[in-house]
């Protein structure tokens, strides 16, 4: 086993070194692409090799250490890597999808001047994500977590000349920062409570410390809540979800990599990784499920009415992440990670084909200006169709397998209400996927493509398309994550409804499309209001603007002169005034100096006399 440790150590280091070389060197574009794609592809091959070695083994652990980071008294943090089935799946997703997106980016970004900067960020991102996934302690995980956040900021604001992109980048950074802060506090709390930050030790110690007094699990709940805060921020769940649609300001491959396939899954990974800790806090788990459900409904309903191609995909990402949270919440961590994997495949596919579309159509984002592209761009259309089918979880796609699994486990956990909500979400998902596909690829041609996708782009699309179709084989190792669940007890309705519903939704969408009801202005004011509400993602931006930003701005305006500072400024001003007053006395006039001397004598004598008189 140990002979693979050095291989494991190579995984996060390869992209890191590649990023550093790119940062400090001045390679031509060809060199940049070879280095950047080569490093990530190398990692992908290593992880495939590890997959091949450990394939279908349910429990194996591989560790590697890159040295000590902190060693103070009881706080011992090392750059330790830890590979188990869960992280193996994760690194396979990250490096595999990452490599394909790198490959695709060569074609997509070739005209860009900042080609090198782009790949530096991208490599750094992959490296940070791999650190996050492989970390054996929470602090190293946090390092990767923050690195991912930083790279996401840099990549969203990649086209920094446009102010809106910078604002979107700021928004993403700040929103995730709220969660990160909660997570950092959670780490501190865990350390003070359990005395360690090693993930495996935490799971063991938590059980021994907190399960002894079963009735008093408040501390465990608080820890889990704080960790959940971090996960919610990173994975764009309900209170902190509205950065994701704006994050589409970055280049499309970035959206595919960061905001669909890998970064947003960090939150899922965090909870799955600490699943044993979370089992100590069933209330928090239920909260996770609730958050997931609400988010999936929110995302799906908002995706239904968007007109921007990338925003539709962004909202669908939010909704799919909601499914994963739901699965985590009902204790089906394995299904969550499985769905994460299939989602990474088909969402990357969707984003990349969307990128190809945008690339071909003069950076047009509005779906109602597209149409009839099926014949013009067959490869793109095919991959988009596969992606949409997987998103809608039509049978025989990877999305179908994972989503069915989640739904089954929701039923098994006994939360019927959540199941209905999830099924409703599935219906809406199928509906908007169909709408998206119909509007973009069928109907009348409005814009004709001016550039065909390059070979590297097509290659990435084909591979991802194949994966989206046949990626539904669940790795055996993940089963270890799942507590034994009885998936047999499904009623007929519960078994068939999720399979039939997508078809109903698609036919409904087809009917609406045929009667040309998509994209028409809505007459009824009530419906229009709902439309508006849904389009703004349930107006969360507006709510935050009113609740947080506006009062804070007002407060800032009020406190423009800095109320607290004014006290100190008063001191300063007083001393200034005194200085000016007293420097009046130093006027260089000999006679006034004399006079002051005499005045002093007069006062002194007067004091003396008054003393005498009192006596």
């Amino acid at each position: 086993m140990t002979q693979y440790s050095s291989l494991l150590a190579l995984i996060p280091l390869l992209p890191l070194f590649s990023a550093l070389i790119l940062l400090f060197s001045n390679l031509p574009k060809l060199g940049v692409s070879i280095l950047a794609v080569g490093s990530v592809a190398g990692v992908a091959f290593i992880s495939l090799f590890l997959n091949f070695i450990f394939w279908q083994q349910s429990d194996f652990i591989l560790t590697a250490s890159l040295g000590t980071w902190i060693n103070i008294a009881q706080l011992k943090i090392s750059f330790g890597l830890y590979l188990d089935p869960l992280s193996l799946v994760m690194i396979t997703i990250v490096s595999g999808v990452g490599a394909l997106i790198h490959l695709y980016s060569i074609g997509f970004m070739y005209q860009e001047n900042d080609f090198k900067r782009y790949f530096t960020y991208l490599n750094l991102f992959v490296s940070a994500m791999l650190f996050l996934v492989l970390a054996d302690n929470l602090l190293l995980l946090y390092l990767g977590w923050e690195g991912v956040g930083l790279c996401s900021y840099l990549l969203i604001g990649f086209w920094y000349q446009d102010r809106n992109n910078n604002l979107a980048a700021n928004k993403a950074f700040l929103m995730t920062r709220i969660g990160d802060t909660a997570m950092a506090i959670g780490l501190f709390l865990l350390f003070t409570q359990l005395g360690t930050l090693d993930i495996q030790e935490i799971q063991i110690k938590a059980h021994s410390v907190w399960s002894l007094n079963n009735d008093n699990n408040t501390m465990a709940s608080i820890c889990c809540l704080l960790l959940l805060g971090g996960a919610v921020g990173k994975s764009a769940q309900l209170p902190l979800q509205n950065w994701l649609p704006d994050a589409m300001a970055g280049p499309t491959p970035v959206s595919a990599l960061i905001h669909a396939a890998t970064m947003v899954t960090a939150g899922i990974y965090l909870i799955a990784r600490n699943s044993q800790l979370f089992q100590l806090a069933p209330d928090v788990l239920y909260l996770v499920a609730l958050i997931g459900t609400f988010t999936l409904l929110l995302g799906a309903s908002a995706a239904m009415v968007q007109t921007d191609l990338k925003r539709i995909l962004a909202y669908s990402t939010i909704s799919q992440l909601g499914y994963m949270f739901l699965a985590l919440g009902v204790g089906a961590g394995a299904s969550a990670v499985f769905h994460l994997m299939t989602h990474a495949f088909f969402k990357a596919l969707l984003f990349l084909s969307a990128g190809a579309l945008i690339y071909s159509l003069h950076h047009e984002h509005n779906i109602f200006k597209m149409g009839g592209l099926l014949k013009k761009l067959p490869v793109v259309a095919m991959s988009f169709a596969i992606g949409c089918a997987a998103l809608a979880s039509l049978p025989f796609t990877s999305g179908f397998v994972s989503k069915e699994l989640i739904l089954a486990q929701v039923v098994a956990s006994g939360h019927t209400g959540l199941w209905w909500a999830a099924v409703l979400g599935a219906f809406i998902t199928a509906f908007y996927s169909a709408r998206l596909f119909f509007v973009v690829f069928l109907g009348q041609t409005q814009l004709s493509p001016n550039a065909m996708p390059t070979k590297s782009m097509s290659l990435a699309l084909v591979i991802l398309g194949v994966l989206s179709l046949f990626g539904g084989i669940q790795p055996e190792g993940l089963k270890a994550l799942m507590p034994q669940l009885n998936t047999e007890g499904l009623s007929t309705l519960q078994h068939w409804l999720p399979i039939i519903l997508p078809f109903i939704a698609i036919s409904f969408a087809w009917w609406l499309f045929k009667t040309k009801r998509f994209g028409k202005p809505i007459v009824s004011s009530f419906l229009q209001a709902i439309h508006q509400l849904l389009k703004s993602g349930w107006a969360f931006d507006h709510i935050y603007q009113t609740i947080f930003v506006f009062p804070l701005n007002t407060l800032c305006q009020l406190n423009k002169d800095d109320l607290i500072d004014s006290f100190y400024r008063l001191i300063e001003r007083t001393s200034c005034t005194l200085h000016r007053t007293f420097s009046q006395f130093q006027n260089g006039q000999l006679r006034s100096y004399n006079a002051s001397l005499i005045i002093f004598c007069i006062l002194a004598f007067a004091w003396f006399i008054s003393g005498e008189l009192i006596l």
Partner: protein
Amino acid sequence: MIPISWVLFLSLSLFTIGIFGVLARRNLLFILISLELMLNAVVIVFIAASRYHSASMANSDGQIMYLLVLTLAASEIAVGLSLVIHMYRQHHHLDIDKLNKLRD
């Protein structure tokens, strides 16, 4: 015998006149003259002190102090007058209100 309060009264009056001169005059020469008056006022007190000192034996301390003050006055006048000459050469007037360069 003259009461000592008379002498002290004389001395104080002379001293105050000197102070008035120092305060009121702007001509450096007049200020020096006023200083002379003040010195004289002090000297009168010294002499009176030597006169009215304790009865048993004569004490010449006051007169010796007078000698010291006299020397002091002479030196002061020598330096002061040379400063007057110097100032007159530099500024062609003796107005001390215009000598305020030290302020800056």
